[in-house]
């Protein structure tokens, strides 16, 4: 049951990264790939029907973590205190930038919210990547099951660590590049005209950067947490995940070369899922690794909720999950094909 919940959390986190990931990518890129108000509204029309729902995957992920592994949520959220508030504030600014922008048809008003949208959308991937880096590197969890670290200390990976160091910044950069590339492919798929052309022109370079950073991060991980790769021979799932992310990367470049935007976009989705799944398979069953003493680490067995609650939760979750997929299927079907900027007052 604990293993099921571990993978459930991983699946929802991966869904969040893939789904809201293209919103962040589109936000981070839109100042460059969409120059006029009409082009920017085309970007907003592309993510408009989905972004709010995509964000719910984060809440759904937080929910299953809370329900399944309350100790991990409690330790992680209070331990990464300042970074969590940066996430909260970035999400807040991203949301109101999209919502408020369309309400007033005025150049300065819209320019301001465009900048807020771009800034918040760029910050989020860095924070998500740093979070991933922290999980891999480990944190100074003590016997009480808690820790608390500042934003940064000496930028090194040895205690006393901060949330940001050279390694977590590297993973932050990897995720920023990946989601930006993912967003470019989404926009290339959903738009036409100048926005489409600029995204297509930009994507190959972005994905070369992604590949280089992924390689660097893989090498760096071997230095920061050598034990991680020791799990590889015993984790067949990790091999499948690695295969998936390599195949995803291949599909991105193949799709770009052939001008098949959907294939490239699906490839970047597979790349993200593969990367996260490989990480999850290698860290299993540890969820928060203690750098003080392995005995203090929080894992799927010592941090989970009681078996009755896990079973009850799984029952309703299995009923709710298809419902959520149905909603998204409906939205994608309803808004299929290329988007056009909505008339003022008819959309974002």
């Amino acid at each position: 049951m604990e293993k099921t919940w571990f993978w459930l959390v991983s699946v929802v986190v991966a869904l969040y990264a893939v789904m809201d990931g293209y919103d962040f990518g589109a936000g981070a890129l839109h100042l460059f790939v969409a120059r006029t108000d009409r082009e920017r509204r085309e970007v907003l029309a592309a993510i408009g029907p989905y972004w709010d729902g995509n964000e719910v995957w984060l809440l759904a992920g937080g929910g299953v973590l809370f329900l399944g592994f309350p100790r991990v949520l409690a330790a992680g959220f209070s331990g990464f205190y300042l970074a969590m508030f940066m996430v909260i504030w970035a999400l807040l600014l991203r949301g109101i930038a999209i919502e408020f922008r369309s309400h007033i048809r005025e150049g300065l008003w819209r320019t301001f919210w465009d900048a807020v949208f771009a800034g918040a959308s760029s910050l989020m991937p860095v924070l998500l990547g740093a979070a991933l880096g922290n999980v891999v590197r480990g944190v100074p969890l003590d016997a009480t099951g808690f820790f608390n670290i500042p934003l940064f200390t000496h930028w090194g990976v040895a205690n006393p660590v901060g949330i940001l160091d050279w390694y977590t910044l590297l993973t932050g950069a990897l995720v920023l590049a990946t989601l930006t590339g993912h967003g470019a492919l989404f926009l290339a798929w959903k738009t036409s005209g100048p926005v489409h052309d600029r995204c297509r022109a930009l994507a190959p370079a972005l994905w070369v950067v992604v590949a280089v950073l992924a390689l660097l991060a893989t090498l760096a991980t071997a230095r920061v947490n050598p034990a991680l790769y020791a799990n590889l021979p015993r984790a067949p799932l990790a091999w499948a995940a690695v295969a998936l992310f390599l195949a995803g990367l291949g599909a991105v470049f193949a799709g770009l070369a052939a001008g098949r935007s959907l294939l490239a976009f699906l490839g970047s989705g597979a790349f993200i899922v593969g990367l996260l799944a490989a990480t999850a398979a290698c860290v299993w069953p540890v969820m928060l690794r203690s750098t003080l003493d392995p005995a203090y680490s929080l894992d799927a067995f010592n941090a989970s909720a009681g078996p009755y609650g896990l079973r009850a939760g799984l029952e309703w979750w299995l009923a709710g999950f298809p419902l959520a997929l149905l909603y998204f299927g409906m939205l994608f079907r309803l808004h299929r094909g290329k988007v056009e900027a909505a008339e003022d007052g008819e959309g974002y």
Partner: protein
Amino acid sequence: MGGLLFWHRFQFGFTATFHYLFPQLTMGLALVIVVLKGLALWRGEERHAGAARFWIRIFGLTFGVGVVTGIPLEFQFGTNWARFSRDAGGVIGQTLAMEGMFAFFLESTFLGLLVWGERRLGPRLHALAALALFLGSWLSGYFIVATNAFMQHPVGYRVAGDGSLQLADFGAFVVNRWALVQYAHTMTGAVVTGAFVVAAVGAFWTLKGIHLEQARVYLRTGVLLGLLGSCAAAFPTGDQQGKVVARHQPVTLAAMEGRWRSGPYAEVNLIGQPDVERQRLDNPVPLPGILSFIAYGSFSSDVRGLDAFPRDQWPTELELLYYGFHIMVGLGTLFIALMALAALQLARGRLERSRPVLWCLMLAFPFPFIANSAGWMVAELGRQPWLVYGLLRTAGGTSNLVHPGQTVFTTLGFAGLYLVLGLLYLFLVAGEVANGPQGHGRA
């Protein structure tokens, strides 16, 4: 003042109170919109469809602010209340996760369709989108109230070997009697807010003599729903809420009324300032027997005072709790009076010419927000000194490795952000009201 516990509590109290200004309006407006869309389908009249369109625009704006101010609260359980999350997450994580799965996905999917999709969907499907959003937002309310109800009156749990609370009976936890009563009371409060806001815009336009056809629809809908909601907030829902508090949190009831000594014919005081040090109420104006009646249904019932409970069980912010209760009940009574008067004038066909009543309706809209906030203060301060009633004290639930330097920083950050957010929201809503029912540049 200045300790870690104070800042954790202050921050959550502030962000939760600010957040709830928005959902109470969207949950109320969701009902208004469903009613208007239903009327438009049934009568086939453009004025109802037009009214729905205007309120959907306000709904969309309010919903957006509600979402971005609600997300912080979900995080703050973990960031600021880590020991509470660790010890109670196995139970309350259920309802919070269900809210995401069953309410938020429904809402986020249909919000865009409701706000932008009228042309694409046609009248029937668009009305269905309104219904879906109504269901989603009211379901969301239930999951939050059920979570809170566990903290007020824990049921369906067991205490595990490590001291944490674990789910033991899913049905009992989700259908907590406290949750049902509190939900009914909370939702009638939200309907009051929505109805007063709708009536206020109607009154404003009528007084100015503009958009009269639309204003008439708003006035009718707002006054009728406002009267129903205001009455239901007092009876039966407020009455039932009083009875569950009397039964499960008797010390809270005593503190709400500044009742120091036990005895029969317990009074409700119209005014009076509680002096906790000397254990008395200054210049009280009592209505004897009313508290006995609220609590137990008979004027002569014995109601225990604070003297019946050890001091360490007393709510810690007794003064604020006392005023919260009196503000809620006082305003609630005035709401019934105002809406009854307006409904009377409406029935006589004279509301649009009764300028004093219209002035009152126009200026009354902030007060339901105050009454709802005061009501939540009663619930949350009344629960003190417990985080989970009788099981976990508030002081034992904080993140104790987070130091005040971090919490003060994030509290100030919220203060700044929410000030800007609140001003922008008011500015945009005022703009919509000024632009009138057609909106700016919209067909």
